[in-house]
C-alpha cells in the first residue's frame, strides 16, 4: 500500500472450504475431504516415519525424547489452556511415574508392558490426590504447589535415602524389542493427542473449559468444580506419568534427576512457542526445542536460560505461537480492504 493510497485495514475471512467443512458433515468433494484429513495424515505419517529416516541410534533416541517431552507438553497445554491450571512442575509427574514403574518392575517383577500402564494409572491417582488441596482454589495455588513438589520430593528421597537415594534404582528392564521401544512412545503420543482432542470437544470438555472461564457460573449450575478439576488433573498427570514411565524403560534407570527442572520448563516453553491451545503446537515446539537442547548440551544449564528467555519473549510479546499462526493461515484469508 503506497503512502498516498486511501487508508486500508486488514480483513480476515474464513476460507470457503473451512466454512463448508466445519460443523456441516456433508463433505461434497475430495478436495474438502482432503482439506480436513491431510494435516492429520501428515502428522501421523510424519511421526511414524521419523525413526526410519533418522540416521543412527543417537537421533533415534532423540525422537523418543521428543515424544516424551511432547506428552508432557500435551498435558501442560491441556491443563493450562482448557482447564486454567498452570502446572509449573511437570517433573512432578515424570518423577512419580518413573519411580512407580521402577518399583513395579524391580520389586514386583512385572514386565514393562504391565508396569507402564500400572504406573500411569496409579501415578495419576497419586498425583491427583497430592494436588487435591489446591483444586478448589484459584489457579495461582496450583502453580505454587506444582512448583514445589518436585523440589521437595527430590530432597526427601535424597535425605531419607529411600528408593535408591542419590544412586537411583537400577536394573530396570527395557522394552522387549527395539522396535517396540522406538514406536511405543510414538504411538502413545498419537493416541493421547487425538484422545485429548476428542475429549476437549465433548460435553465434558465444554464443562472443563467453562470451569476455566467462569467457575462461579458452573457452581451456580449445580456442578462441583473441584470434582471436574480433579478429573482433568487425573488425565493430565496420568499422561505425565506415562511419559516418565517410558523414559525409565528406555534408559533402564530411575533417579532423582527425573525430578529435574528440564521436565518442568521445556514443556512450558514448547507449548508457548508451538502455540498453546492447539494440542499439536506443543509437539511442534518439542520438535524444535529438544534437538536444540541436545545441541546445547555442552553448555550445561545455559539450556534452561535459553528456554526461559524464549519463553519470556513469547509470553510477553507474541503469545500466539507457531501452530496458532499456522492454523490461521490455513483457515483464513487475509487481505487488505479499503475503508
Amino acid at each position, binding site marked *: 500500500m503506497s503512502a498516498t493510497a486511501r487508508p486500508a485495514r486488514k480483513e480476515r475471512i474464513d476460507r470457503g472450504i473451512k466454512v463448508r467443512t466445519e460443523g456441516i458433515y456433508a463433505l461434497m468433494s475430495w478436495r474438502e475431504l482432503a482439506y480436513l484429513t491431510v494435516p492429520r495424515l501428515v502428522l501421523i505419517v510424519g511421526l511414524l516415519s521419523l525413526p526410519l529416516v533418522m540416521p543412527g541410534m543417537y537421533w533415534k533416541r532423540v525422537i523418543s525424547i521428543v515424544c516424551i517431552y511432547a506428552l508432557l507438553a500435551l498435558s501442560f497445554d491441556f491443563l*493450562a489452556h482448557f482447564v*486454567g491450571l*498452570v502446572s*509449573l512442575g511437570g517433573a512432578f509427574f515424570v518423577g512419580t511415574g518413573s519411580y512407580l514403574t521402577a518399583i513395579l518392575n524391580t520389586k514386583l517383577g512385572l514386565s514393562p508392558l504391565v508396569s507402564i500402564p500400572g504406573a500411569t494409572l496409579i501415578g495419576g491417582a497419586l498425583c491427583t490426590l497430592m494436588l487435591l*488441596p*489446591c483444586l*478448589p*482454589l*484459584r*489457579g*495461582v*495455588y496450583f*502453580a*505454587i*504447589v506444582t*512448583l*514445589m*513438589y518436585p*523440589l*521437595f520430593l527430590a*530432597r*526427601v528421597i*535424597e*535425605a*531419607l535415602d529411600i528408593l535408591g537415594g542419590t544412586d537411583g534404582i537400577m536394573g530396570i528392564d527395557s522394552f522387549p524389542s527395539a522396535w517396540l521401544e522406538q514406536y511405543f512412545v510414538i504411538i502413545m503420543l498419537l493416541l493421547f493427542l487425538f484422545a485429548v482432542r476428542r475429549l476437549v470437544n465433548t460435553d465434558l470438555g465444554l464443562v472443563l473449559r467453562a470451569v476455566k472461564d467462569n467457575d*462461579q457460573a458452573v457452581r451456580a449450575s449445580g456442578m462441583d468444580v473441584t470434582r471436574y478439576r480433579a478429573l482433568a488433573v487425573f488425565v493430565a498427570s496420568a499422561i505425565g506419568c506415562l511419559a516418565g514411565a517410558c523414559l525409565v524403560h528406555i534408559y533402564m534407570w530411575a533417579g532423582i534427576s527425573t525430578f529435574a*527442572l528440564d521436565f518442568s*520448563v521445556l514443556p*512450558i516453553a514448547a507449548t*508457548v512457542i508451538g502455540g498453546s491451545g492447539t494440542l499439536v503446537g506443543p509437539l511442534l515446539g518439542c520438535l524444535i526445542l529438544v534437538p536444540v537442547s541436545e545441541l546445547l548440551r555442552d*553448555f*550445561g*544449564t*545455559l539450556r*534452561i*536460560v535459553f*528456554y*526461559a*528467555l524464549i*519463553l*519470556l519473549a513469547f*509470553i*510477553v*510479546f507474541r*503469545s500466539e505461537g507457531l501452530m496458532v499462526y499456522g492454523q490461521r493461515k490455513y483457515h483464513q484469508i487475509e487481505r487488505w480492504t479499503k475503508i
Partner: protein
Amino acid sequence: MDILIYGTINSVVLALYALGFALVYGTSRLPNFAHGALYVLSGFIAWSALNTLGLNYFISIVLALVITAIIGAVIYRVFLIRVRGMEISEIIASYAVALAILEGLRWGGFKGMTYTLPPFIEGSTTIAGISVDYQRLLAVGIGAALVAFLWVFTHYTRIGLALQGMAQDERAALMLGIDSDFMAVVAMGLGSALAALAAIVLLPLGNIVVESGYNVLILAIAVCIVGGIGSWAGAVLAAFIIGFAQILTVVYLGSHFQMVVALLAIILTLILKPSGLFGQQKELEERV
C-alpha cells in the same frame, strides 16, 4: 531455651524473605516468582563489587541494593507489565525471569560453595548460655526494624499510602488519581530492594548458592500463604509459626525436613483456611 533463641532467629529470617514478595503481591497482585532470583542476584552483585571490583564493603552493599531495585523495576516495566492481569501469563513470565537469572548465574560460574560475604561484625556473644553470632543478632534487629519501618511507611508516607490504596481497591485508587501502573513499578522496585536487603543481611551467615534462590522463593510463598495475603501481621505471625516448626523438626527429626515443613504448612493452610491466618476474605468473594 536454645529452641527459643534459634526459633526466633529463624522466624525473623523467614519474615525477611517474605516481606518483598508480600509487598509486590499485595499491591499489584503479581506473584513474583523471580523474588528468590533477585535475592541471590543481589548477593552476587555485592560479592562481585567487593571482590572483582575491589570496592569498599559498604559501597558494595549499597550498590547491590540499588542495582537490584532498579533491575526489578526494569524487569517489571519491560516484561511483566505487559501481562498484567492475565494470571497464567504472569506466573509463567515471572517464573521464566527467575529461571533465566538463576540458571544464568549458575552457568556464569557461580557454582559451588565458595562464594561468601563477610559479616558486618565478627564475633559472637552468649545469651542465656548459648553462643549467638553478632551477625545473627543484627539480622534480628534489622528485621524487626524493617517491619516497623514498613508499617510506618505504608501508613504515613504518600507513596506508602498509595500502595496500600492500590492493595485494597485498585479501581478506587485509580479514581483518586493514583497511577496504578507506575505504582506497580515502584512496588516491584521496593520489593526487589527488600529482597536485596534480606540478602545483604542474611548471606553473610552462610554461602551464596544458587539453590537458595528456589528455597527463598518457596519459604517466602509459604509465609505469605499461611499468613494471608495483604496482612503484615499475618505474615509476621506465619513466619514465627513456620520458623519455630522448622527448628523443632531440626531438633527432633533431623535437618533434612526443614523444607518439608514449609510444604506441609502450605498444604495444611490450603485445606483448613485457604485465605490464611489474617487474610482478607475479600479475595474469594470479590468475584461474585
